[in-house]
């Protein structure tokens, strides 16, 4: 009996497995395409709704309950249901995955906006900002850090879950899992899983870098503890009753 890890390593490093229409490179691209499509559609729905709920506070209870209910749906069941109802092709499984991706994105967006210090929002309004200015100039930049957390969770979830579309059967790295299962080819299954995990980690790293670039500078100082500066008063003349004397 040969060692499964050695076999997996051999499977992953075989150049023949990387090229061609069923090769790893193609599957990787398919996987990224599906994930990107799902995220794009989900974000187009979840972000505006999350911004609205976070800013106004309207519909918060309904949204939390609804998002919770969506999260409880079984992935594979939903996928098969959509395929049965809407037929074959790319879009039915994409819609099923969109439904599963909206809740974490919505929650992340909403949490980001509502994490902003209410006194800062109040001050912005009192300065004379319109509601849209408050949202885009104050709440969004200051809520970005928390929002990024939600986005990264959602992205990881999508990259992992998109594998199931191979069950329908479509492409993506999930192919190796389903094919490997049918063929009892365990190195192929394990290799596929490793590739999905590696992709998820790589994408998360890219997002971490993006977060660092997009996060306003003032906030990154804040989150790292910063160096509070005192004693920079130019003209803080001691006023009122000075207390006399005392040893310095």
């Amino acid at each position, binding site marked *: 009996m040969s060692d499964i890890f050695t076999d997996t390593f051999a499977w992953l490093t075989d150049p023949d497995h990387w090229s061609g229409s069923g090769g790893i490179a193609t599957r990787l691209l398919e996987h990224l395409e599906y994930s990107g499509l799902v995220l794009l559609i989900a974000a187009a729905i979840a972000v505006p709704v999350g911004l609205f709920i976070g800013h106004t506070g309207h519909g918060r209870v309904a949204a939390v309950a609804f998002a919770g209910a969506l999260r409880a749906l079984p992935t594979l069941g939903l996928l098969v249901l959509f395929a049965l109802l809407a037929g074959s092709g790319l879009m039915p499984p994409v819609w099923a995955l969109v439904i599963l991706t909206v809740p974490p994105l919505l929650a992340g967006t909403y949490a980001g906006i509502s994490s902003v210090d209410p006194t800062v929002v109040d001050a912005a309004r*009192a*300065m004379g900002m319109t509601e849209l200015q408050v949202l885009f100039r104050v709440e969004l930049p*200051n809520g970005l850090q928390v929002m990024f957390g939600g986005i990264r969770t959602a992205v990881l979830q999508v990259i992992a879950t998109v594998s199931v579309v191979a069950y329908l059967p479509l492409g993506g790295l999930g192919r190796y899992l389903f094919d490997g299962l049918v063929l009892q080819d365990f190195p192929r299954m394990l290799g596929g899983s490793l590739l999905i995990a590696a992709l998820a980690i790589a994408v998360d790293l890219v997002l971490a870098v993006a977060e660092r670039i997009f996060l306003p500078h*003032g906030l990154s100082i*804040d989150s790292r503890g*910063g160096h509070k500066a005192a004693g920079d008063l130019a003209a803080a003349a001691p006023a*009122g*009753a000075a207390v006399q004397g*005392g040893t310095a």
Partner: protein
Amino acid sequence: MAEAMIEFQSVTKQYQGGQPAVDGLSMSIDKGSITVFVGPSGCGKTTSLRMINRMVEPTSGTITVAGKDVSNEPAAQLRRSMGYVMQSSGLMPHRSVLDNIATVPRLNGVSRAAARKRAEELLDVVGLASTLGKRYPSQLSGGQQQRVGVARALAADPPVLLMDEPFSAVDPVVRDELQQELLRLQRELAKTIVFVTHDIDEATVLGDKVAVFAVGGKLAQYAAPEEILRAPANDFVASFVGRDRGFRHLSFNAADAVRIHPVKTVEAPELAAGNSEWAVVVDAGSRPLGWASPRDGAGLIPGGSLFRRGDSLRRALDAALSSPAGMGVVVDEHGRLVGVLKADEVLALIEETRHKREDAT
């Protein structure tokens, strides 16, 4: 009679199913003066303030600013025409100090460069070093943040400044500084300032006029601070103004007539050895450092509060009472020793002042 800038006409604010927060408020706020709203929590003073710039909409009644009903103007535009300073600085954490100050000019369409230039000037106006402009709010102390908050409120040069407990979250020493700076600024700028506080001391220090609010949103007394301390309109005002109001009232009487005595000085406490009386220890610039006791070996004893020439009777009495030697130390404008004053003579002067007031009425 001063010209009215802001007028409340039977303004009531009632939240659903509760007591009114503000109940039939009618008052007129003088142009170019500081009017302080003071009262216990829940008296409607902040609600009243926030109705001026429509952060809160009144249930009934009208508020006019410079003769115009505020409800006729779009809220955002109205707010840009008034400076607003709040308890927590409310600075935007993602923007630099300069960009925070430039907020309202930028909203008004002023170019970024011009708005920043104005912001730099304002840093100086509120007594902050220009190097702080590039910092972020989280890198400032509480007192510095409040100064930036004041600069931000002044940026568009609004005629009206609304200040909601702006100094209550900073420590007493810094608060005292900020109060004095606000008075200095006001002497230069002559804005119409509405200032909310729960601290009667702050109210009497800052206010040209003080409005005392009672719980339930009623105006209990609206008068000059001196009058509120001397003649509270009712028991509520009397109890709110508190036990020390007699002492506080002394703030409004000059102590110019108090007698100043010469005092023995030494340059180091050791030099007082063998003295039969208390001596003031002074530095080379004759600024007082403390006291040397007639008893040997006590070293430098920290002094009490200082009485600066031109200060009030309250300061004079406090200087005398807080001094370990029983004599209050008097200094000139540069902090140099002038002499000492005595508690019994200050008390006699207080009595004399009272007689004069009685004769005048």
